[in-house]
């Protein structure tokens, strides 16, 4: 299974940091290979070219690798490692916040995103405005395509699971619509979140008992609503 998914490598100056980021990212993406490459071989702080090269080589199961780094030489070492691969196109080093980027990339990879999509997901985690205020985005609503409105679907869901839309349920939700051809939005009060973005969902801080509105537009809008409703009915597998 994991052979079909894009893999991640986390390059850091610290072994502990790389391991921790990989651990947190992998938790949200059980079928994605996430390899840490942190610290020097003697356990010291620094970046180890050979360890990075080995991690990238081992991580790639054919669908490519997205490499994240913390700072400075980690970026340069990662870039050199990728350049020295037999096929440098197999991997890409992305400029993204390490923790948020790794999690966003892991979720995208779990959802079957290709290398470019996974890399974009990591980059998009930088300075994202986590939620869009519906009041502000109302402007564009009028001009919205009438056809899109026709293929739209909507549902109200009252969260019954203990933790609400916290990290794990948010990841499950984002994952279940990752490959659906529809724009899916979750609204709580005045705030709206992109259902494919774990951060956006978590920023709603929707809790047990809250009622959220799910709206989907696109050819598979109905399917998207059905999947989310089913997930919520299963109490997010808690």
């Amino acid at each position, binding site marked *: 299974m994991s052979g079909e998914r894009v893999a991640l490598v986390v390059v850091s100056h610290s072994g502990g940091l790389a391991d921790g980021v990989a651990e947190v990212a992998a938790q949200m993406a059980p079928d994605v290979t996430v390899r840490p490459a942190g610290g*020097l071989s003697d356990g*010291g*702080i*620094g*970046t*180890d*070219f*050979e360890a990075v090269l080995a991690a990238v080589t081992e991580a790639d199961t054919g669908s490519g690798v997205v490499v994240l780094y913390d*700072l*400075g*030489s980690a970026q*340069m*070492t990662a*870039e*050199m490692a990728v350049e020295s691969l037999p096929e440098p196109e197999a991997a890409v080093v992305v400029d993204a916040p390490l923790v948020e980027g790794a999690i966003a990339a892991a979720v995208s990879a779990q959802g079957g995103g290709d290398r470019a999509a996974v890399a974009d997901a990591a980059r998009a985690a930088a300075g994202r405005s986590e939620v869009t205020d519906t009041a502000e985005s109302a402007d564009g609503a009028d001009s919205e395509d009438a056809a899109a409105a026709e293929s739209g679907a909507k549902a109200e869901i009252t969260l019954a699971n203990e933790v609400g839309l916290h990290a794990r349920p948010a990841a499950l939700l984002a994952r279940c619509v990752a490959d659906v051809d529809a724009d899916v939005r979750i609204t709580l009060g005045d705030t709206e979140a992109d259902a494919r973005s774990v951060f956006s969902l978590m920023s709603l801080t929707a809790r047990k008992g809250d009622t959220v509105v799910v709206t989907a537009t696109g050819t598979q809008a109905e399917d998207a609503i059905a999947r989310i409703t089913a997930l919520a009915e299963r109490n997010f597998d808690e």
Partner: protein
Amino acid sequence: MGCDAERVAAVLRAGGASVAEHKAELIELDRAIGDADHGENLDRGFAAVLSSLDAGVPETPGAVLKTAATTLISKVGGAAGPLYGTAFLRAATKLGDASELDAAAIATGLRAALDGVVARGKAEVGDATMVDALAPAVEAAERSHADGGDVAAVLSAAADAAKEGADSTVPLTARKGRASYLGERSVGHADPGATSTALLLRSFAEAAR
């Protein structure tokens, strides 16, 4: 009267000796505006280069430089690894399999090294990095070669300019690397990488005499 592979190896050994000698000074410079490891990093890297040369000197100057490059990339562990590694690698590639380096080759090799550092680290002159030492060094080397200087003269001109370039980083605000996190507080300190570049070129010039 060019530099053959043995001579290039001797030049690198002199560089390693200089790094070892100035290790504490480089650490102190990096302590002021970085993470206090530049001397340690470079010394670890050059010690590995020297032991690889002790095990056998490759046939051509280009191959010697390539060994230095790959060893530094693997062993340094900080920004200086990919930067100096890329510098030596680009020089090695530029010099191809020539069996001796003349003054023109030295100037060309230095230019390729600078291009490599800039491509890798994206720093410009004035950002308070090793580029502030290497860029004027390349220009001085090219001038010296145009004026008819030999290998030793070209390297010596490069070393003088690199020293001046390293000193010029003192009043600058660092805009690349770890020191850039300090912003204004990096003013008043010489950049460690610019200083090591000047030290290396000085030792190369002396060993090539």
